[in-house]
């Protein structure tokens, strides 16, 4: 919750700072909103304790095992 709030505040402050420039450029505005939405969604996913670490664990089980086999030889 704490991290989500801080992120929203940071994004909002930055938006207020560059709003005039963003209003001029439609494509930039779209990208800004997309990245901000992704950021907030990821923060919500973390807040709900989604197991995002499975991605890294997958790499650890596959590529990590290859290295371990090389070391064992």
């Amino acid at each position, binding site marked *: 919750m704490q991290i989500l709030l801080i992120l929203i505040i940071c994004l909002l402050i930055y938006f207020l700072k560059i709003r005039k420039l963003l209003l001029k450029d439609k494509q930039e505005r779209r990208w800004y909103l997309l990245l901000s939405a992704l950021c907030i969604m990821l923060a919500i996913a973390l807040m709900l304790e989604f197991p995002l670490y499975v991605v890294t664990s997958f790499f650890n089980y596959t590529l990590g*095992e290859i290295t371990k086999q090389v070391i064992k030889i």
Partner: protein
Amino acid sequence: MKQEQISPFQLTCLIGNFIFTGVLISVPQILVEISKQNTWIVILFTYILTTTFFYLICRKPEKLEKLKSLFNIDKRTWIKKVFFSVLSMYLLFIYIRDFRAFTSFIDGILLPDTPIDIIALLTTLTLIYISLTGIEVISRVTVIHFITISIVVISLPFLLLNEIQLTNLLPFGGLHSGAEILKSTYIFFPWMTEAIVIVFLFVFLHPISHLNKAGIIGISCGFFLLFILIFLNITVLGVAITSEATYPNIKLIQQINLTDFLDRLDLVIEVVWIPTMLCKVSLLLFALNRLFNTFRRKDSDFNLVPLALLLSLTIRLFKNNIDGIEYSFFTWPTKGLLLELIIVFLFLILKRGKSDKVKKMSKKYDGIN
């Protein structure tokens, strides 16, 4: 928009800092665990391999002159798109790995009561501030901090003179030493070959004819500093302690015992190291933003802030500190090596393609005359 430029000396410092500052966190532990008292040979062996690899990319730098517009928003071939994708992925993985290692270090050693998310967020705000200024400022900041940390590392043998025990280096060699050195090299090589970040940095270098020299001096500086640290790890701490410690270099600098009143000199050295790490990660953030801009065909820094904030959440991609260390020690060598080979291969194709085109054009021109 004016093209930013960096000098060969700045490139040297950027490369040296890039390969040195991330490795010293915890990599010496796994190296010493595998190749024991012979680990210093691994550094020399990997140095030869890395410089050869680097020379392969940077030889005949005049050919790279034509590739200077590589990251500009112009028409892109499919090979360029593949190259950008692999390079972005590679830099992203380095960013995730180093950012996690850095925040874990601060969380574990310096600020144990502060939540790791807050450390990550505050670090990200600092990184945004540095990255928004551009490559020229990042280079200048890196030069100052890399020189400072180099002086500190070079002075370490003198500060630890009363603790060095050369007998820790014995027995030299051994029955399985060759295999152990090769295994350590397998782990160490992808870390040091991060010097191939030059495929991104060369576009800013002026004059480009100094690319090879600047890069190799940078790599040599990084290796020399790491050699000092590994040598001291073995001679001061010994193989047993180094292979057990999560942060062996912190243990090392805690051994400095000059006078009775300078008992926390390690904190001073950590404060010198932290900005060098920030320089490395800010360079990565700058590169990622630049590649992101190339993809979306826009040349602006508006989206650096949301991108950096998004990346700050990647610390949660690791369940805990042990997961992060396992990723660095075992997953990264294989993953890094694969990506590095692909990047070098694609870059050489791009380089060759461009130079062939130039040759054809000049032949055509000669024919007309």
